[in-house]
């Protein structure tokens, strides 16, 4: 029932990645989760091996792969049952903003580092008082001579501690229409007036450094404007399809892993003779199989550059809701052992709970679907 066709090259890429994960990632997960961060050196290792930004063109140091490489990265990282190395935020969400809207100078300055892992990126969009409601943004960027001066606070920023470069959304306080007053800026780590908070304590994604970013009279050169002024809203929207799609891809692979692990666990315990367990597995297996076909179809359409905003929003909602429900249900089948952190599904449960909240909550997805389909 596969839709996606992986080439020999893809499979070789995956095999290398698989080995990397087995030897360089999995043995360190527990430590990184305790540390609440993944060392930057791992990013550089990933970069050296071509696992970051796998579809950037060669002229920027990339390998010139396609989106299927990103799918394989999501698959293999899901297999590690760990979200500390959520490189898709960098490779598939943030860097594409730079690639799409950057000037040649910006592209040459930043992209090679994004590929090697010397530059870890983050996107600064969410604020303490504005989640999905971008128009109520309070971070301001004011023109002053040949600079922009930025003030404000961003929160829930993934890669917030490790990041070397932030794609920051800020509003022109003098703009009339808030939707047309948002611009994007490239802010480098170390810029005066830009400070980072400590990693936030979360239910899951323990080693993913989610933090607050503070901007206090942070002055950046005008050339660090990304794309055209006042166009931030549109640019952010334009890239949401891929952002939400990669969330769906990841969610489906996490689903598969959980189910597989649970089946093995129950088999080893001799618990598959329970009809209730068998039915639960069949029900979950059905939802996952159906969801996988849908996810693969989305990827196929996305790679054909189809505009599938509604279908992707559906996918984001369906798959992230599914991964949560699968985690809840697998834990129920597993029973007491599921209440220990030793059980991998316990971590998946904690980690997956954010996926129906981030990258646009599922409530926002439903409003989008309704807006385009039922109004």
């Amino acid at each position, binding site marked *: 029932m596969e839709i996606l066709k992986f080439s020999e090259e893809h499979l070789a890429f995956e095999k290398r990645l698989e080995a990397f994960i087995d030897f360089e990632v999995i043995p360190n997960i527990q430590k990184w989760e305790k540390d609440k961060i993944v060392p930057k050196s791992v990013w550089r290792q990933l970069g050296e091996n071509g696992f970051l930004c796998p579809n950037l063109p060669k002229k920027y140091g990339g390998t010139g792969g396609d989106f299927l490489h990103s799918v394989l990265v999501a698959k293999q990282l899901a297999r590690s049952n760990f979200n500390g190395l959520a490189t898709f935020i960098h490779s598939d969400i943030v860097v594409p903003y730079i690639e799409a809207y950057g000037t040649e100078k910006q592209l040459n300055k930043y992209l090679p580092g994004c590929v090697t892992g010397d530059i870890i990126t983050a996107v600064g969009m969410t604020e303490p008082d504005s989640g999905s409601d971008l128009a109520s943004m309070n971070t301001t960027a004011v023109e002053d001579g040949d600079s922009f001066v930025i003030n404000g606070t961003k929160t*829930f920023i993934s890669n917030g501690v490790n990041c070397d470069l932030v794609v920051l959304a800020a509003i022109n306080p003098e703009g009339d229409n808030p939707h047309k007053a948002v611009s994007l800026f490239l802010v480098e780590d170390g810029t005066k007036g830009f400070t980072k908070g400590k990693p936030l304590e979360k239910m899951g994604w323990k080693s993913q450094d989610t933090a607050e970013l503070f901007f206090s009279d942070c002055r950046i050169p005008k050339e660090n404007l990304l794309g055209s002024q006042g166009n931030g809203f549109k640019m952010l929207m334009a890239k949401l399809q891929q952002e939400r799609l990669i969330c769906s891809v990841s969610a489906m692979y996490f689903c598969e892993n959980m189910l597989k692990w649970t089946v093995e666990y129950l088999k080893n315990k001799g618990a598959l003779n329970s009809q*209730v367990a068998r039915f639960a597995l069949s029900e979950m297996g059905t939802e996952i199989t159906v969801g996988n076909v849908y996810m693969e179809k989305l990827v196929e359409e996305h790679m054909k550059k189809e505009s599938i905003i509604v279908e992707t929003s559906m996918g984001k909602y369906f798959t992230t809701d599914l991964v949560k429900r699968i985690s809840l249900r697998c834990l129920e089948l597993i029973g*007491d052992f599921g209440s*220990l952190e*030793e059980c991998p599904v316990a971590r998946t449960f904690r980690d997956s709970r954010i996926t129906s909240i981030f990258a646009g909550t599922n409530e926002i997805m439903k409003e989008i679907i309704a807006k385009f389909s039922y109004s």
Partner: protein
Amino acid sequence: MELNLTRSQKEIQKAATTFAKGEFDKDLALNLDKKGRFPEEIWKKAAELGLVGIHIDGDKELSLVDSVIVAQSLCAVDSGIGSSILSTTSGAELLFMDGDENFRSKYLVPLLTGDKVCSFAYLESEKNLQSTNTRAYLQDGVVTLSGSKLYVVNAEIADYFIILCLISLKEEPSENLSLIVVDKNTDGINIRPLGEKLGFRMNPVANVDFSEAKIPAANILTFNCESKLKKYLAIDHILKASVAIGIAKGAFLRALEYTKLRKQFGTAIAGFQVTKHKIADMDTQIQTANLLTFQAAQNIENGNYDDLPSAQALLTASKAAVYVCDEAVQLMGGYGYMAEYDVERFYRDAKALEITYPSCSALKDIIANKVIGKIK
């Protein structure tokens, strides 16, 4: 739903809530949860106030509704600290039901005064209690006990265990499912901690092995305990249901407050129709579970130990707790996922309660067997 609490019940409710609000420090709770530590000081204070084992404190009748109220009130303020306090008397009802004055003064009273912690070790298979293989034989006034118990809550902090085991008498082949009290310092006990937990992290859990542990015969609490055990489980289900309801209430109130304050697109989230309907569903489930639990507790206070109502109460309450906490996290968005805002912890506790023994599956077995009865 108005529950018609008596004046004394209302006072208990108020006392427990006031105590919890005063003593359950938020940062402390976050820290204890993170480190997996038992809230010893607060527990001792709760005992001083008479909030520990309140249903067995006092005279000869079980005032189970009082404990339902205390459990809900404490857990609504903090699911971790609240449930930890309640966990210290796990199995104590067995002492109450069956213990003579000796057990009472030596083992039961110190629980109520906050001087000792009891741990009931019963599980050997996750599925049911029918597969007890821990065996003991009685000879010359000494019981020799061997076997392993799984998922023993508070094993590390307990002062003594109540053990479910098969006891055989000297030269008599039949084995009797029985209860025995074993002091922690008895030789031949090996505690193997099970590491970090998903929920209820303030209560460490361990497997416990007994290897020819020698216990005085006087410590045999109940010989042939099947019917007592069934009664105990009915009580235990109700107390667990009360914890679940407290967790649900705590998460619900936090989310409700958040949705009333937090604005999106210029409107308080609580003003959105979808939010309103979620809140209606959440409240309905809490009230429903609450009513079932009070009714089941009342039944037992009236001497009716039927295990159907308590199983239905726990099934409903633990499902409600998971549902309510899950929705609370979603309503609070990114904040719901942050430790600082509590509900993620309540959610983990709710989930842990739901999946640990007795699982929903075990509860449904109890219910179905009762409802279906004999098949021709």
